[in-house]
């Protein structure tokens, strides 16, 4: 089931669930135990979920297991995985070799790279290209997709982009489609040569106010020992507000691809507080979020660059996984499929429709200024 209009839904994928080279390089042992070995210390921390029967605790080094994972993702309507590039010594490992046998033009692999501290070097770029070359690529605008995480760590974004592009040429790639993780175009990243931006995760960009439960009343309760004071150490956002904040007024943020997520809670990695959590999550709203994101990219992006990112396929440690769980079965996966179908259908009935403000005969900026002026006039007390 592929959505229409060249819409492509990608999911961030953790390839460390394997006994192969990547699994060994990141510590060996049981990767599932490592990911799931965390227990809530606070009342507002929801426990991690457990893999369901459908896919179980797979080992990606086993070809049949990897094939099952890709088959389930394909059936859901997902068009590819985004794999992290893990720095190991002087090379990068991605785990792509486990999945590549099951990929083709309809299901490809993209990569996410977190720049090292300090300036990127030619050797580093060459190692990165060596790690991502040779697999079924996930293309945007005919070029391999590479997501650059935390681009604000780059001392010289334009220089790094040029370095990566040169390394890609040298590696024989037909160019790179570089996506920077940033919420809006104002930071100059597009001018530096990135092709598009991508909404950051909830911990990187707190796009809405914290939930109302963190008010003065609760604070007094906590001080009196009648509520868990730990919740003030974490950032808790209500899912509905979070979703709306991610979708409201998107065009004004520039060329930013949507990142859709069902849930997020990074408390296992912040045992002393400072975690980011989404509260009151809802599979139904998640479906609408996904469908809305698909419609948005169909309306605002060129046909070859219509990507929506789901965060994530299997980040179990952050509770954001959409894989089947023991607790909820395939509910979320079904809602993902429904969201992709619904978004594809809505986009199909909308794309091609003229959008207000695009007509050359009407000066949208002047109209907006006029409305602002009237609005300000209404705010002045009589």
């Amino acid at each position, binding site marked *: 089931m592929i959505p229409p209009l060249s819409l492509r839904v990608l999911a961030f994928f953790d390839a460390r669930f394997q006994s192969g080279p990547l699994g060994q390089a990141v510590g060996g042992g049981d990767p599932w135990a490592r990911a799931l070995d965390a227990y809530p210390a606070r009342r507002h921390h929801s426990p991690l979920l457990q893999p369901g029967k459908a896919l179980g605790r797979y080992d990606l080094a086993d070809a049949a297991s990897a094939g099952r994972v890709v088959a389930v993702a394909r059936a859901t309507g997902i068009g590819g995985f985004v794999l992290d590039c893990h720095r190991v010594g002087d090379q990068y490992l991605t785990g792509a070799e486990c999945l590549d046998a099951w990929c083709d033009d309809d299901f490809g692999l993209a990569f996410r790279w977190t720049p090292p501290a300090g300036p990127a070097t030619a050797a580093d770029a060459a190692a990165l290209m060596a790690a991502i070359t040779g697999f079924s690529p996930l293309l945007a605008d005919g070029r391999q997709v590479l997501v650059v995480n935390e681009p604000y760590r780059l001392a010289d974004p334009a220089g790094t982009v040029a370095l990566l592009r040169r390394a890609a040429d040298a590696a024989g790639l037909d160019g790179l489609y570089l996506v920077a993780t940033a919420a809006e175009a104002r930071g100059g990243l597009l001018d530096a040569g990135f092709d598009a931006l991508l909404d950051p995760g909830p911990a990187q960009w707190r796009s809405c106010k914290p939930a109302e439960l963190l008010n003065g009343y609760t604070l007094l309760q906590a001080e009196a020992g009648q509520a868990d004071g730990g919740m003030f150490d974490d950032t808790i956002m209500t899912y509905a507000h979070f979703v*709306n904040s991610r*979708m*409201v007024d998107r065009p004004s943020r520039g060329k930013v691809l949507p990142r859709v997520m069902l849930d997020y809670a990074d408390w296992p990695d912040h045992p002393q507080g400072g975690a980011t959590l989404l509260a009151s999550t809802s599979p139904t709203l998640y479906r609408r979020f996904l469908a809305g994101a698909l419609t948005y990219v169909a*309306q605002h992006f060129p046909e070859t660059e219509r990507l929506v990112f789901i965060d994530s396929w299997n980040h179990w440690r952050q509770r954001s996984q959409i894989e089947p769980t023991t607790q909820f079965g395939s509910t979320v996966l079904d809602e993902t499929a429904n969201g992709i179908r619904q978004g594809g*259908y809505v986009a199909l*009935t909308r794309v091609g429709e003229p959008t207000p*403000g695009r007509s050359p005969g009407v*000066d949208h900026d002047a109209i907006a*200024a006029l409305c602002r002026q009237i609005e300000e006039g*209404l705010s002045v007390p009589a």
Partner: protein
Amino acid sequence: MLGGIAITGGRLEAFDFRFSMGPLSPGELLDSATSPPGRYVWEVARRTLARVPQADAVVVSNPLLASRGARLADLLRGGDTLRCPAVLTDAETFPVAYVLPRALFDQGLGRFLCLLSANRAATDAQLLSQLTGQIVPRRQTPLKPLAPLPKTTAQGYILGDNLAAWQAQCADAVRLIRSRPDWRDLPFAAHHPNHAGDVLFFSLASRLVPPQRLAFRAQVVCRAYLDIFRDCGNRLDPIVLDIPPVSRTGSVSDGRYYLDSLAHIDPQARAGTFMVYCRFSKTYSRTPFNLVDQARFALGDPVATLDDTLYGRAAAAQLPLGHSRCARPPAPLRVLMQLSGGWPLKAYPARQARVLVQALARLGCAVTALDAPAELVAAGAIPATAGSTDRLAALIRDHHVVLSVDSFPLHFASQVLGHPTVAVFGPTFPGNSDAPRRLGYRLPPPALPCGPCGGYKACPLDEGAECHNHPPPADLVAAILEVAAEAYGGTVLQRGDAA
């Protein structure tokens, strides 16, 4: 998920069908909120027979339940010898599936399955018995008792009073068949009497269903909406209901209203018509399909592919019904607005409405507002009231562009008259009730994914009285000017005019 099984000489072939979320691929059914569950029994049987044309019988799962074909086959294999026709039940009396002989469809009686109650096995067995002329047994299966059922099922069916409504339509049909030897030729009437927009959607649907597919010949409609029924070119015969439309507040459910309304329908009409409950059997905000397509499905059209939908070529060629334009000179640009809808949250926020009216006034436009509150009149709008479709049509034709929230004037201007229109959606889902795209029609996209929220009086997120998902005034002003330029030629206002 709906299961269908073809039985051919004792061999079972199971099929799965699902309510589509959009693609309408071969195993999917258009999700229609205005179709009673029996309509899906008919459709699944029809699709199953299309896949196995030589089948002797088909078994169809109860649409209220999620049941795969393979699961159904397991239930059939266990227990006594299967008889056909039959109603399979859970360990108690709730219907789980229907065993239907092929002859039912060969004789053209499939549409009578729309009358099934889907929740009372005895009544359903009586209906099948009347249709087939055979004794129809109820056979229990090992399935655990299904009761108590949720208020809304996973398939989106609203139970509550709807259960009684479906039972009543089935029981009435049994009585009618018993009392009328000519029952095979009696018409079906869609009981969908209100509200204004819904009557319009059913009217358009009645025109789009190919004659050979149209299973209905009449529609029950409130007298208050009879002008809409006629002026929207409804091809069905009206059966007039002389009581007020059901309240929007939900104080009386659609199912209860159906039951109460039966006593107010002309007894002669009732004695010669099969009434089918066509108000909302399901939550309509769940399905992505347009209400016109949902009504088409209810009336018998399978709407089996995307190309068959309102957004496909065939339907687009038939809608809008007219091609209306304002005959006045292009300046000043005259704009007709409807900024309030069927329920409070649909209304365009008051403050933004004032900005919109003032901005248009400063651009030299003449603004008329239907049912305008005093603040809008103070902002420069001329108040007007429509009252009837004739009066509304005259008002629309007297203005260059119509701007309306998701309400009857929007659908009437865009889908019936074909007038230049700007659609404003906030808490409702545009795909359920907008028009196919065309020149002279704009739908500035709502920004947030929280719609459709189902909110009535207040936003479910912030509990405020206004929906923040409505497009800002600047988008609406731009859309009005663009639509006017498309429809009347030239640029209505040049760059800089607004400054």
